[in-house]
């Protein structure tokens, strides 16, 4: 399963959500499918995409928030699972693309390649709904279900360690950030 195919499969579902991605391949691939003002790409600060999603979810309880995380990023901030589980916002969908690799920085294997089980960690941290998917169809179903559901969900998507040729997009980081905030503020106006 390729991450790009997963992103493509749920791209239409993202239109009404606020989306936060990690850096590197995930950001570049979502951007390549067509940037939208409700997409924020956290192009550094590994580990903090889930925290950002939590801050959004707690601040905007009526808005669906989707975080595209990765195994390398989540392993840098495993405590975030316990913090998310503590507040368990029902409007947050936490998706972890697990390619068992730090692909964007040279492809070094992460601990999920030697047996670390992110589904087990997330469940034990107290995330109410956790599942692992291995096919694009299962991924699409899981994401749709989570978006329509009423429980904080972490979806581990096992994907191949393959990504785009480059990671730099034509969207400046600061432009992205202001556009994202302006988009959210526009939702509040009647």
């Amino acid at each position, binding site marked *: 399963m390729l991450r790009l195919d997963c992103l493509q499969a749920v791209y239409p579902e993202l239109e009404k959500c606020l989306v936060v991605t990690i850096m590197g391949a995930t950001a570049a691939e979502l951007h390549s499918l067509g940037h939208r003002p409700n997409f924020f790409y956290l192009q550094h*600060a590994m580990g903090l995409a*889930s925290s950002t*999603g*939590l*801050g*959004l979810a*707690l601040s905007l309880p009526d808005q669906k928030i989707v975080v595209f995380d990765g195994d390398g990023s989540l392993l840098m901030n495993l*405590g975030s699972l316990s913090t998310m589980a503590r507040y368990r916002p029902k409007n947050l969908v936490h998706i972890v693309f697990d390619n068992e690799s730090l692909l964007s920085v040279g492809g070094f294997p992460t601990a999920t390649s030697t047996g670390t089980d992110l589904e087990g960690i997330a469940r034990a941290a107290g995330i109410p709904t956790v599942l692992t998917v291995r096919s694009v169809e299962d991924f699409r179903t899981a994401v749709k279900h989570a978006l329509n559901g009423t429980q904080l969900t972490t979806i581990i998507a096992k994907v191949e360690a393959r990504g785009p040729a480059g990671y730099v997009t034509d969207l400046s980081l600061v432009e992205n950030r202001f556009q994202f905030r302006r988009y959210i503020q526009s939702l*509040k106006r009647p």
Partner: protein
Amino acid sequence: MPVSLSSSKVIFNALKQCHVRMLSALPETWLVHLIRMAEEDPEVTLVRLAKEEEGVGISAGAHFAGVKSAMLMQNHGFLASINGIVSFAHLYKIPLLMLISYRGTFGERDPWQTQGGNVTEALLRGMGIPYSFLDEIETVEKRVRQAQTLAESSLQPVALLLTRDLMWEE
């Protein structure tokens, strides 16, 4: 416990007057009253963290959502947050109001706090983070307001160091 309840109240009220509605925190002795006040106030969302760096992401999310927030942490928590501050808050121009208990300075009895005290201000200066002190109860409200104003207008992290003189009664 000789942590000043009256000073904590003044700080908390100053944050509320600045319309701070989300606080991220990790417990530390000097912050116990502030954290309890945040927990008991229905207008404030308290986010208890596993590690302080998460608070940078929480505050960024709140900022995008239009909610004013602040981070409550010890100076060692600030040390643990540095990458998040640089590679998120500085990189993306995110306002952060950081209230940092300034442990390990004159009067510190806990040996384990003393190294953090030595490096806190040097790091703040090195990172280009504007900072000031909460050291007298009379000026707390004004300083908090000024720090919050600067964070929002400059879109950057701003630090207030909570000092022993204000926080500890003995």
